[in-house]
C-alpha cells in the first residue's frame, strides 16, 4: 500500500512538471508549483517514515512499462524507505525555501517545469527494482538537473558547467549500464530479484570498479568530481541544495543497492579501494574548498569531502563484511548512513544560506561580502548552526556521525589482512585531517562573509530575506540541533536497513539511559549528545548569571585597536584568500603546485607591488585535459576524410571490397 502511495506521488510530481509548462509565465505559477511539490514530498516523507517505523515487509509491484518482457519493477524496502526519507526531507526543505526564493528567479519558465520532474526522478531511482527502470530514472534525474543547471544559460560558465555535467553524468550511466550488463548476464534478466537469485561469482570485481565510476561520478569521488563545483553553483540555490544534499545521497544509495544488496559478499580488498578513495576524496575536497572564493563553490567542494567520509564508512563496512565481522560491519554501515543523513540536513541549510546571501546582496564572491550578521540576523544564526554542524563540533549532528565513524575505525585491528592494517589508520588520519580542515574552511566562510565590516556597498545594503526562506532554514537548523542531541533515535531508525544489508545491527540505542549512543557495548565507549548540550548550556547560563550579578554591567563602544595607523578602509580586513594563505602554504605546494610570487617595484619608483598566486587543478590537467586533447586531435586528423575527391572515395570502396574478398579467400 505504501509503495502504491509513493508511485502515485511520483506520478503527481511528473504531472506537476507538465502543469508548470502550461502555467509558465503566469504570476501564481511559482507559488502553486512549490506548494504542490512541498505537500507531495511531505506525503512521500510521511509514507516512508510509517513504512520504516512499522518495519513492514518489503512491498514490490510490476507495472507494464519499461522493457516489454521484464516490465517496470518497483520495490519499497527498508533501504529504499531510509533514502526516501533523506531525499524527501531535503526536497521538502528546498520546496519550502523555493516558495520565497523562487520569486526572485529571473526566468521561472526554465526552472519550474524541471523542478518537480527532478524530484520525481530522484524518488523513482530509489524505488526502482530492475536495471532498466533504475537507469531510466537515474538518467532522467541527470537530464532534469542538467536543464536546471542550464536555467541561467546566458552566462558562458553556466553553459560550460552544464556541458561538463551532462557529459560526466552520461559517462557514469554508461559505467552503471555495463555493470548491470555483467550482473544480469547474457540472456538479460534485468530484474533485481532475478539478479539477487543468481548467486554472483565471487570474483565479480569489474562490477565494483564500474559501480565506483558510475555512482562515484554522481556522488563526486575525487577523480570524477570535476563537474560538481561547476554545476552546483550554476543552478538556482534551492536546486543546488537539492543536487548537493540529496542527489549525492541518491548516488550513495545506488552504490549501496548494487554492491551491498545485489553483489555477493565483497572481497576484502574491495573495502580497501573504497576506503582509500573515500579518504582521498575527503581531504582533496576540503583542500579545494579552502582555495575557493565563491560561496557556492566552497559548499560544492565540501559536499565532495562529506561524500568521502560516507565512502570511508562504506569501505570499512565492506572490509568487515569480507572478514565475517557483522557487528563491526553494522557499526560502520550505520555511521555511513547517519553521516549521509546529517549531510543532507546541514548542506541544504548552508546552500539555503548562500542563496539568501546571493538574493540579499546579489553577490556570491566572499571577497565582496562581510558584516552581514548585522543586516541579516536570522540567516546568520542559521548559517552559523550549519557551519558548526558541518565542522563536526560536539553539540550538533556532524560530530555524532563523525564519532561513530571513528569508533568503527577503532574496531579495525581485528581485520587480519595487512593491506587493511596499514590503510585503515592512514585513512583515519586523513579523516581527522579533513574534519579539522573543514572547521578551518567554515570559520573562513562564516567569518569572511558574515562577520567583520562590509567590503562593498552591496554588502552594506543587504536586507533580511523573506519569511519562507527563513522558516526553511530555521527548520533545518533545529533539526541539526535535535539530531545532534538525540542521535539514538536516528540510529535505531537505520537499524532495519543495517540488519538487512550487513546481517546484524547496532544495539538499540533508545533503551540506554540518558539518550547516549553506544557503538558496541556500554563498557567500551559511549557519547551523550544531550548531556554535552545541557552541560554547556547550564555552565554558560550559570556563568552569565554570576558575572552579571558580581561584575560590572556597563559597556562602552569605541574604535578598535589599529596599531597607530587609522585606515578605516574595509580592505585591511582579512579576506578569504589571506585567511587560507597559511593552509595553502602548508598543503597547497604539494596538492595544487601553488606558486606565490611578489613583485616589488625597485626602490624610488612609484610602481605598485603585485602579489600573484598561481594555482593549478592537477586532476583536471592530468586527466581531463589530455582526454579532450586526444579527442580533438583525432577529430582533426579524421576531418580530412570529409574533403576528398570522388576518386579517393572510390579507392576507399575498392579497398573495402578487396579486403573483404581477401578475408573470404583466406578464412572460409
Amino acid at each position: 500500500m505504501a509503495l502504491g502511495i509513493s508511485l502515485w506521488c511520483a506520478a503527481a510530481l511528473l504531472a506537476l512538471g507538465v502543469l508548470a509548462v502550461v502555467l509558465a509565465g503566469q504570476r501564481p505559477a511559482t507559488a502553486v508549483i512549490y506548494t504542490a511539490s512541498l505537500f507531495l514530498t511531505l506525503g512521500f516523507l510521511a509514507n516512508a517514515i510509517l513504512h520504516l517505523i512499522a518495519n513492514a515487509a518489503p512491498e514490490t509491484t510490476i507495472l507494464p512499462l519499461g522493457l516489454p518482457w521484464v516490465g517496470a519493477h518497483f520495490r519499497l524496502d527498508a533501504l529504499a524507505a531510509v533514502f526516501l526519507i533523506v531525499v524527501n526531507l531535503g526536497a521538502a526543505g528546498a520546496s519550502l525555501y523555493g516558495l520565497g526564493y523562487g520569486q526572485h528567479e529571473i526566468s521561472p519558465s526554465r526552472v519550474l517545469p524541471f523542478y518537480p520532474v527532478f524530484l520525481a526522478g530522484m524518488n523513482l531511482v530509489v524505488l526502482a527494482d530492475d536495471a532498466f527502470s533504475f537507469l531510466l530514472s537515474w538518467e532522467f534525474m541527470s537530464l532534469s538537473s542538467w536543464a536546471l543547471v542550464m536555467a541561467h544559460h546566458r552566462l558562458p560558465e553556466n553553459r560550460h558547467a552544464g556541458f561538463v555535467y551532462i557529459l560526466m553524468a552520461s559517462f557514469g550511466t554508461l559505467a552503471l549500464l555495463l555493470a548491470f550488463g555483467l550482473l544480469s548476464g547474457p540472456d538479460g534478466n534485468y530484474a533485481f530479484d532475478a539478479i539477487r537469485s543468481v548467486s554472483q561469482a565471487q570474483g565479480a570485481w569489474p562490477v565494483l570498479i564500474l559501480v565506483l565510476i558510475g555512482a562515484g561520478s554522481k556522488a563526486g569521488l575525487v577523480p570524477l568530481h570535476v563537474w560538481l563545483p561547476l554545476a552546483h553553483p550554476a543552478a538556482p540555490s534551492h536546486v543546488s541544495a537539492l543536487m548537493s544534499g540529496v542527489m549525492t545521497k541518491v548516488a550513495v544509495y545506488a552504490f549501496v543497492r548494487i554492491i551491498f544488496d545485489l553483489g555477493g559478499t565483497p572481497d576484502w580488498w574491495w573495502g580497501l579501494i573504497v576506503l582509500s578513495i573515500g579518504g582521498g576524496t575527503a581531504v582533496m575536497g576540503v583542500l579545494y574548498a579552502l582555495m575557493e572564493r565563491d560561496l557556492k563553490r566552497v559548499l560544492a567542494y565540501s559536499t565532495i569531502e562529506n561524500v568521502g567520509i560516507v565512502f570511508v564508512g562504506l569501505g570499512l563496512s565492506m572490509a568487515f563484511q569480507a572478514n565475517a565481522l557483522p557487528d563491526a560491519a553494522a557499526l560502520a554501515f550505520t555511521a555511513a548512513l547517519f553521516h549521509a543523513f546529517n549531510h543532507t540536513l546541514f548542506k541544504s541549510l548552508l546552500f539555503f544560506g548562500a542563496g539568501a546571501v546571493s538574493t540579499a546582496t546579489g553577490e556570491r564572491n566572499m571577497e565582496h561580502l562581510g558584516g552581514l550578521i548585522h543586516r541579516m540576523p536570522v540567516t546568520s544564526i542559521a548559517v552559523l548552526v550549519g557551519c558548526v554542524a558541518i565542522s563536526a563540533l560536539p553539540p550538533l549532528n556532524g560530530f555524532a556521525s563523525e564519532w561513530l565513524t571513528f569508533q568503527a575505525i577503532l574496531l579495525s585491528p581485528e581485520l587480519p589482512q595487512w593491506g587493511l592494517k596499514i590503510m585503515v589508520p592512514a585513512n583515519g588520519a586523513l579523516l581527522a585531517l579533513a574534519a579539522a580542515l573543514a572547521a578551518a574552511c567554515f570559520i573562513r566562510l562564516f567569518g569572511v562573509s558574515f562577520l567583520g565590516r562590509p567590503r562593498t556597498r552591496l554588502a552594506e545594503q543587504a536586507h533580511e530575506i523573506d519569511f519562507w526562506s527563513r522558516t526553511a532554514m530555521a527548520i533545518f537548523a533545529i533539526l541539526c540541533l535535535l539530531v545532534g542531541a538525540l542521535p539514538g533515535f536516528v540510529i535505531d531508525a537505520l537499524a532495519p536497513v543495517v540488519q538487512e544489508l550487513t546481517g546484524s545491527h547496532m544495539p538499540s540505542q533508545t533503551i540506554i539511559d540518558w539518550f547516549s549512543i553506544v557503538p558496541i557495548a556500554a563498557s567500551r565507549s559511549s557519547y551523550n549528545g544531550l548531556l554535552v548540550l545541557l552541560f554547556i548550556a547550564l555552565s554558560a547560563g550559570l556563568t552569565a548569571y554570576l558575572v552579571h550579578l558580581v561584575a560590572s554591567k556597563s559597556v562602552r563602544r569605541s574604535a578598535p585597536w589599529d596599531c597607530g595607523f587609522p585606515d578605516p578602509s574595509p580592505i585591511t580586513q582579512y579576506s578569504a584568500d589571506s585567511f587560507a594563505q597559511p593552509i595553502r602554504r602548508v598543503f597547497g605546494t604539494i596538492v595544487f603546485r601553488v606558486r606565490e610570487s611578489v613583485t616589488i617595484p625597485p626602490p624610488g619608483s612609484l610602481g605598485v607591488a603585485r602579489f600573484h598566486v598561481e594555482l593549478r587543478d592537477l586532476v583536471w590537467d592530468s586527466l581531463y585535459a589530455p582526454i579532450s586533447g586526444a579527442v580533438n586531435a583525432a577529430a582533426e586528423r579524421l576531418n580530412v576524410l570529409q574533403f576528398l575527391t570522388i576518386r579517393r572515395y572510390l579507392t576507399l570502396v575498392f579497398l573495402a571490397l578487396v579486403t573483404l574478398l581477401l578475408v573470404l579467400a583466406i578464412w572460409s
Partner: protein
Amino acid sequence: MVLIRELAAQGAQMMLVLLLAPLLTGLIRKVKARLLRRRGPPLIQPYRDLIRLMRKEAVLAVNASWLFRAVPYLVFAATWVAAALVPTFATDLLFSWSADLIAIIALLGSARFFLALAGMDVGTSFGGIGSSREAMIASLAEPAMIMIIFVLALIAGSTQLSIIAEFMLSLAAGLRVSLGLALIALILVAIAENSRIPVDNPATHLELTMVHEAMVLEYSGRHLALIELAASLKLLLYVSLIGCVFVPWGLAPMDSGWNAYVVGVLAYLAKLLCFGVALAIFETSIAKMRVFRVPAFLGAALMLGLLGALLRFVSGSL
C-alpha cells in the same frame, strides 16, 4: 548516601579545576621570572587580575556583533565542562561515563571555533591574523590529537577517559613503544594548543607574532577575564590529561572512600607543581619559532601519533 558522595566529589572536581587553573598559570610565570633572575609577580597575581578585570568596564569595538559578546561565555563554558570531565584526583566520578576523549577534544575544538569567529568579528586585520594562524595550527594539531586518542583507545579498549585512566592505573598496559610516541606527540600538541613558547608567546602583544592573543586583542573587562580563565583552564586540562593517562599514580580508583580522594588531591597538586616547573624550564630554554616552521613541528606530532596508531594496528604487543 553514596549519591551525595558522588555528587560532592563531582562538584569538588569542578570547583577544584576552576580554582587551581589561575594558580598553575601564576606558578609558571613565577618560575619563569625566577629563572630569568627576576622576582616575578606573586603566585596569586592571576586571581587579582581576574577580579580587577571583572570590575572593569567592558569596552566593545564599534563593529562588534552579539556573537562577540556571547563567545566568552561559550568558550569558558565549553572549556570548563571539558576540564571538569578529565579525571584529576579520582577516576570514577558521577559523570565520568560521558567523559569520552574524542568528545572532550571536540569540545575544545568548538571553543577554538567560536574564539576564531570572535577574532574575525571585529573587522581589523589582527583578529584575522590570529584566526587564520589558529586555523592552520588547529588543522594539524587536531588530527595529531585524534591519532593519540586512537593509540590510547586501542591500548585501553575504549575511548572513555575514566576507563583509560583505570587501565593505566592497573599497569596492565606495561611499557609500550606506541605509548611513548603518544606521550611525545601529546606534549607537542599541548604546547601548540595552549600557545606556549615555541609555537606562540602567551606574554607578547607584538601584533605580527601572536596567535591566541591576536584573537582576543579586542576583549576587555569581564569578557577578557572569562577568556583568560578559559585559557588557563585549557592549560590545566592538558596537564591533568597527561597526568591521568601517563602519570596515573595517586588517582583514587573505582568507588574508594574519602581518604583515597585526599591522597588523590595531594598527588594531583604534586603533579601540577612538577608539570608547571617543567613547562617553565622548557619555555625559558627555547625561543619562539617562525610561524611557518610550526607546520613542521606539528607535522612531527601527527606523524608520531600516526606511527603509534600504526604500531597498535599492526601488532598487539608493540
